[in-house]
């Protein structure tokens, strides 16, 4: 059977290094299969997160040959196996061990975003009437599997480490899904401008390019949110009107 060499980052928050492992390759294998094979036979305590192995849960995010990817959806047949394949943990989050990072920041920030607040039900049985065309856009955002690869690749977080001032693409998608939800009555535009730092995004679309769900993060979520923020706070006509009608909201 053919083999390939994998250089996997081993270590913890105190530091680490690449260790090379050679393992057998069989038809249809993905990177996660190779990691599991190495874990089973050569490195029993190799730390790696995974769950569904079908691109549905977003647990096995890592950087394969430098690109942020889900390991379960990365086919070895798409990778040049003549050279060693490097596998590293995501860089935008604190390291825990081997391929596992501390992504709890994403959960804390999400909790801060104002929750869904629906309008009163349309019908007596407590249900609402919505047409499919009204929810298509929001359903796109709700495909997000929270793999956090978009957060990992965003330079505002990765290089500039603005975790305290900027919520990142995943959470803009979350905010967009709430803001554009046909039933929602909450207003998050002030937070998006002030605490969530939407202004930091300079729409380089790195996030869109790595999204395993193919969500058009920049075009469909972030840019429309930016436009709404601009409309709300920087529109000169609106500003003028507000002076005469301060209780507008």
């Amino acid at each position, binding site marked *: 059977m053919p083999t390939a060499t994998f250089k996997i980052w081993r270590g*913890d928050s105190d530091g680490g290094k690449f260790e090379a492992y050679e393992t057998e390759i*069989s*038809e*249809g*294998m*993905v990177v996660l299969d190779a990691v599991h094979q190495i*874990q*089973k*036979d050569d490195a*029993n*305590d*190799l*730390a*790696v*997160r*995974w*769950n*569904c*192995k*079908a*691109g*549905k*849960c*977003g*647990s096995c995010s890592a950087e394969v040959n430098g690109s942020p990817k889900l390991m379960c*959806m990365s*086919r070895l047949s798409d990778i040049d196996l003549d050279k060693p394949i490097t596998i590293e943990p995501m860089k935008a989050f604190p390291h*825990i*061990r*081997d391929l*596992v990072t*501390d*992504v*709890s920041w994403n*959960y804390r920030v*999400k*909790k801060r975003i104002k*929750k*869904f607040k*629906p309008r009163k*039900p349309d019908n007596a*049985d*407590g*249900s609402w*009437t*919505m*047409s*499919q065309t009204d*929810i298509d856009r*929001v*359903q796109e955002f*709700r*495909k997000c*599997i*929270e793999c956090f690869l978009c957060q990992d690749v965003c330079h505002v977080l990765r290089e500039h480490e603005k975790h305290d001032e900027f919520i990142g693409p995943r959470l803009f998608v*979350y905010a967009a899904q*709430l803001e554009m*939800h046909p*039933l*929602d009555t909450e207003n998050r535009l002030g937070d998006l401008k002030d605490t969530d730092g939407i202004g930091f995004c300079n729409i380089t679309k790195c996030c869109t390019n790595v999204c395993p769900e193919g969500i058009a993060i920049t075009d469909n979520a972030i840019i429309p949110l930016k436009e709404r923020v601009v409309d709300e706070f920087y529109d000169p006509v609106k500003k003028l009107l507000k002076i005469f009608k301060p209780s507008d909201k």
Partner: protein
Amino acid sequence: MATYETFEYDVLVIGAGGAGLRAAIEASGTGATVGLVCKSLLGKAHTVMAEGGVAAALANVDDRDNWKVHFADTMRGGQYVNNWRMAELHAKEAPDRVRELEEWGALFDRTKDGRILQRNFGGHRYPRLAHVGDRTGLEMIRTLQDHGIHQGIQVYMEYTIVALLKDGERVVGAFGFDRERGRFKLFKAKAVILATGGIGRAYKITSNSWEYTGDGHSLAYDAGADLIDMEFVQFHPTGMIWPPSVRGLLVTEGVRGEGGVLRNKDGKRFMFDDIPDLYKPQTADNEEEGWRYTQGDVNARRPPELLTRDHVARCIVRENREGRGSPHGGVFLDIAWIKERLPDGEELIKRKLPSMYHQFKQLADIDITKEPMEVGPTTHYVMGGIRVDADSQMSTVPGLFAAGECAAGLHGANRLGGNSLSDLLVFGKRAGEYAAAFAKENGPGTIDESQIEEVQRWALQFFEENEQGAENPYHIQADLQDMMQELVGIVRTESELVQAVGEIEKLSERAGRSLVTGHREYNTSWHTALDLKNLMTVSEAVARAAAVRKESRGGHFRDDFSEKDETFANVNTVVNKGPDGKMEIRSETIPEMRDDLKKVIEEMV
């Protein structure tokens, strides 16, 4: 002995899939303090993988549907060994539980008049599954997660519970550790809810993730609770089978609901060859009628591809045994053919089955809009589990509740697709409500320190090499999976089941000698060694229960007793831990169904 951190809650929920989250939300809503422990990160539990939909008789697509039809369908699908009271509650309450999700932000696909759209699924008489394309589970778990984080629930991500703690007969807490640092944690609780899912990792070919190691089943068993129906394991008929690395991955029943058909290597739709008597009146006997059904003709009967999962899986096994299987030991599932009937077929497939399209394209180089998929049975679900009271979801041990896949009763011998997501919601809510009420009526218990010390000693023993020789925990798990697949799989016989029990004994002995390398921080080999104990318990329960039921019914098929037998028509197989620590097994008669429910079933046939 090592130190540990202590937390105290009114209600502790173990497991954060659909059932655990729904239970936590409900308990918290009553004012109880709630801790929620998840083995993975929040929102990654196995519910996320559910594809086809959630079954509820909303009657949005076909107004003939109502709870009575759903109840009768569930009982028929379960071959009448279900807990009929659970089936009744489930059918009645599912619509409200689904509507409630919209109040919390879920967005199901819509009908033309703007209501929740419902699709056809195996064993459901009318289109009943509310869905979002083929990612309904993700929608459900995300909705519960995003609602739940604002309900004051304390979430413990990546924690594992290794034992329940008792005060006399009552469960009053749980002991475990955080995976990240490997430090021990004690949870004191007035009531504990298990919502840990299934046991699929006991098998080699499975659609289940690593978490599915029967933890709740095993924790409850060790705490003295009864398990029932463990012989009933669902092998989903359509898992991917090629390439080898994706073997077992689920292919949603929604493919067949949207018009997909099963063919053998000769191109024949073999499902027409064997339609069980119980389903003959409501199954199409020709391809044309079956097609009309999938396209919403209310006067047509369903195609045989939408018979119950147990039956479809067995037909696939039959085709292979008789030499008519596909190249890699399965059959062909063809959705591409609908293009012959629908000019926009390709677009429709991509819109209705987007994850399936991507899954095959990315992992198998197959374009399902152009060519058939190769599929075969995969271990998917366990109908058996912790015996619970239908209304309250309390187990046979006071203070211990269970909901979702780890609880048993609703599905009987075979679960209908779509009934698990509704199960999670209906009984998750009930477990939360009743556990909170139990916590209100009962004060905190006292936990004897020696129990805790014993658990710690056991958990840490794997770091020290056993004198009898060390074992690699991953290898033991793989050996168990091979053995269960081979001897306790879809087709069973007495001699193999007896052999399996013997093998489990040997594997358990080896598991006790697992050696873990490295330290306690995020050490997956340690986690695997600890999970093995649970896997051994559930594997033994399945094998022993399967040996006792000398008939074939639902998910349980015996080659040596290939027909249904009246002797077993109204019994449950009950498993519990005897005073000597050995597994005890007995058959118990199911209480007679209420007359009004009997009448519902009679009227439906």
